[in-house]
């Protein structure tokens, strides 16, 4: 139930579905290759661009960077756009809020922003390593994969959820589920 001026999640989701389809159609027409929503390859390319500043030979020789091609591309701009779009949307209904520790986190780990920073950083390292091994994240595998009825998407999303649900339960503890 939305009480803070947000949109109905079904409605926003339907619009994302339309956006995904229109994006594939437009990129097929204009670029000759359909672009599907995704995010995690961008982090490989961005990491490669950053490493090029200090060790360009190392990046040039790395097999994975060669495979994914270190450059600014459609998807990297998409991820940057997500940041801008979310910022814009939060200004339209005054929901922009500077937050250093999320309330649910502080209920478990306390209000230290450094503790949260460490948790977020470690979680980010693990999540991206896993996403690259799986070949995608909840956008690329989950949304784009399932939309195309790809078996890889169903398996990957299923495993994202199994891992996530188990660890969330370990961290935040079991509780009475509202639906039982």
């Amino acid at each position: 139930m939305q009480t803070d001026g947000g949109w109905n999640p079904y409605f926003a989701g339907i619009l994302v579905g339309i956006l995904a389809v229109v994006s594939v159609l437009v990129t097929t027409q204009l670029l000759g290759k359909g672009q599907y929503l995704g995010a995690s390859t961008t982090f490989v390319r961005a990491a490669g661009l950053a490493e090029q500043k200090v060790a360009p030979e190392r990046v040039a020789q790395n097999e994975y960077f060669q495979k994914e091609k270190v450059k600014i591309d459609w998807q990297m701009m998409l991820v940057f756009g997500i940041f801008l779009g979310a910022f814009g949307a939060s200004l339209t209904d005054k929901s922009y809020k500077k937050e250093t520790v999320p309330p649910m986190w502080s209920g478990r780990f306390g209000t230290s922003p450094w503790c949260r920073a460490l948790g977020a950083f470690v979680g980010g390292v693990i999540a991206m390593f896993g996403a690259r091994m799986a070949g995608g994240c909840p956008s690329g595998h989950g949304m784009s994969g399932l939309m195309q009825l790809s078996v890889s998407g169903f398996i990957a999303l299923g495993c994202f959820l199994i891992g996530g649900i188990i660890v969330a339960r370990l961290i935040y503890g079991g509780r009475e589920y509202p639906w039982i």
Partner: protein
Amino acid sequence: MDLTLGLLTGILFGFLLQKGRVLRFEKQIGFLRLIDMTIIKFMLSAIIVGSIGLYMLVDLGMISLSIKSTVLGAQIIGGLIFGIGWAILGYCPGTAAGALGEGRVHAVWGLLGMLLGASLYAEAYSGMKDNLLKWGDLGKITLPGVLQVNHWVVISVFAALGIAFFIWCEKKKL
């Protein structure tokens, strides 16, 4: 041209993610704790509409699919590792960028961690590509292909299950 299109698509995507309120840590972890179904309502709605639209365009010959290979070892192990990190960070890659946009500054640590994670993966890749990343390689398969049925049968069943789940969620006020 491709950069401009990517940026425009991203701005719209980010706008909708924020309006759907799925960028919040509490929504992401709330879902993984199975006490708030907002993000799955959002995702499933997008997937159902997207699958109908994409397969219509495929049938019309206007687009082609971009299926990722199913590799059991990579997707099961990588998927579980991703899930662990997701539950600790509270964001996935796309939503971390969006969360930073709506002022959740702690998401920046997650984004930096993800850059390091990508870099570590690039180092580890050579050692895994001929073993772990080849285990159970089934190629680019889809559900209709495996089940040997028309894709509209799968889409209809998927949409019906999704809508039944939505009705259940609303009944239980999740």
